[in-house]
């Protein structure tokens, strides 16, 4: 199962090979080894390329998405083609509002530590040991973090009808409206 590629990033590799093929509970935006203290929610799972029934293109601008909402069906596997057309770093992250809120704290930490700047990612710093073996890797299968002009793909299986949002958790972006709703048909 290690060869299931859930996200192929053109540009910079953000360590996005993932090992899971069935619906799983994700802790919110886990960095490094994840947090176990966060309430788990079923948000779907990385999908397989063979199961993709539809492609949705997402353009990330400063600081909003186009489109700002998407429609999916339960069980559907969607290929997201994500491009950062803005001048700032942006994220595309599928999760619940609570998960995004938790992830925003981590992104704030990345910014405070200089891992993340307004318009660039300092990749070498992501491996920095933050203590207890934790790093600031941004490597969750449900998200990509992109510098300006970069693009990436995520294949996602919406196995469950949770109340989901796609969101950019770069500090300030979500709060100023860079998020969109996932509507289940």
């Amino acid at each position, binding site marked *: 199962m290690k060869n299931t590629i859930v996200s192929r990033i053109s540009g910079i590799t953000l360590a996005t090979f993932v090992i899971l093929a069935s619906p799983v509970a994700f802790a919110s935006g886990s960095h490094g080894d994840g*947090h176990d203290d966060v309430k788990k929610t079923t948000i779907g799972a990385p999908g397989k390329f063979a199961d993709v029934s539809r492609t949705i293109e997402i353009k990330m*601008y400063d600081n909003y998405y186009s489109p700002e909402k998407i429609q999916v069906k339960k069980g559907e596997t969607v290929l997201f083609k994500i491009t950062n057309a803005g*001048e700032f770093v942006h994220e595309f992250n599928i999760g619940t509002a609570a998960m995004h809120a938790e992830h925003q704290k*981590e992104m704030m930490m990345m910014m*405070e*530590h200089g891992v993340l700047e307004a318009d660039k990612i300092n990749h070498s710093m992501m491996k920095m040991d933050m203590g207890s073996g934790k790093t600031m890797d941004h490597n969750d299968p449900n998200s990509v973090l992109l510098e300006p002009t970069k693009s990436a793909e995520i294949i996602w299986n919406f196995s469950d009808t949770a109340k989901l949002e796609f969101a950019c958790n770069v*500090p300030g972006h979500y709060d100023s*409206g860079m998020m969109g709703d996932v509507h289940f048909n």
Partner: protein
Amino acid sequence: MRRIFTRVCAAVATIVAATSSVVVAGTYNLTVDPVEIDTGEFKKTGIGYNGASPGPVLKFTEGEDVTINVTNNLDEATSIHWHGLILPYKMDGVPDISYSGIEPGETFTYKFPIVQSGTYWFHSHSGFQEPDGAYGAITIAPKKREPFRYDRDYVVQLTDKHPHSGSRIMRNLKMIPDYYNRKQQKLSDFFSDADENGMSATVEDRMSWGSMRMMPTDVEDLQGFTPLINGKGPNQNWTGLFIAGERVRLRFINSSAMTYFDIRIPGLKMTVVAADGNNVQPVKVDELRIGVAETYDVIVRAEEDKAYTIFGESMGRSAFARGTLAPRLGMSAPVPEMRKSPLLTMADMGMDHGNMEGMDHSGMKMNSSSMKSMDHASMKGMDHSKMQKPENPFYAKRSGLIPVAENGGKFLSYADLKAQKPLYKDRAATREIELRLTGNMERYIWSINGVKYDDADPIKLQYGERVRFKFVNETMMTHPMHLHGMWSILDVGAGKWDPIKHTISVAPGTTVFSETEVDAEGQWAFHCHLSYHASAGMFRKIVVEGGPENTAEQPIKKGALQ
């Protein structure tokens, strides 16, 4: 309530010929009228626009050519300055610098293109008409999509309405500079300080203050006012409606004569998205301080179906503004108690060189609380959120004025302001101009480089240059310095992301830098926006020499101000 989400043609401003697809051209009519102002605590005759104070919200569109007919129904001359708008200098509305003003019974027609977007305001630049009520708001819709999203928006325009007229206040301040300072230290304070700090330190402390001709309580030289939000006093409770879950954009404008406000909405975070009309990279805060003449746009999102209080304490804590965000009219939320008045410290005098700890009691208190957040030993696990909180570089170390969020959270600093999309290319300044902000509190003289306006030569700038202004605040008051006609690029140390503003607040004991691309010809006003400081002489004329039309140095006499 002044809801301005939709571009409704306000009853007061008539839009004519606004339908053409390419060039929008609007005509607006304003009358300058004697009005009655009711703060809920007192009633007072004053000056307003179209029969009310504050005047209407003027809603423009970027790219629009506006025509504004201003009719003066007063029995004295008036003027309107469009605060923060980039326009030809003859349209800037400053008597004796831009034009000769508007005589009683006269109609003056302003015509200029709208070349920007965001939240601004307008006010009289004649005498003390602005403190007397002559102000209103401007919102400009951008051509392009904004870098943020909201479901509705409100102007939240603050002022400090005083029961005395502006001219009476100025007379009193000139006679007795602490006439309106009710928070003076008493003999009992002396003994309690002596008890706490020792007699000799306390005597030395009082003697230092005496030689500065200042007092630690000189945070606000004008007290006894009632803060208003959109013309409503705390008891009249201006209310903005929302539906739970909506994003609401609040356009804070501080139109006060003299008062800074510390604004918070207990229970809600505010995401600051613009400062002085210009978009900034969004920053989420618990509280912010708005200087006189500044504007901040924030987005709040209330998930709950309940009322929230908009609470704005004056910086000296002598009064508070209060309004409400609510799902339905008539609802209200608890109104917090005001916090203790800050006391100025030796640092605010510019005298704290690290060897005066004994005298610096209130400043020490501040310092120890900020030290707590820097205690690395107490951090556990991944919680680095409290790590390395930088000190606020826009206040003197140990200043008594360093703002601290009521809930211990994030207080906006100038250092947080970064341009969303820089207007100018970053480049080195061609020269530096030092402006020492100076004054003599005992005589209520305020000046720049020790010279008041009446005695000063204009500051000459060359078209095309980039000047770096070095503001050195040698007084113990905070001065919001407003340059007309050109942007001030505030040096927050962010290089190309340094934000552009129209008003730069300079705290006591600090030096602040801003740079200006001299890209507007003509002559302009440059002054402290505290009404009585401007009038007392902290004011300069700027003359831009050269430029495409070479229209600088018009033979207009100088003299009338603010």
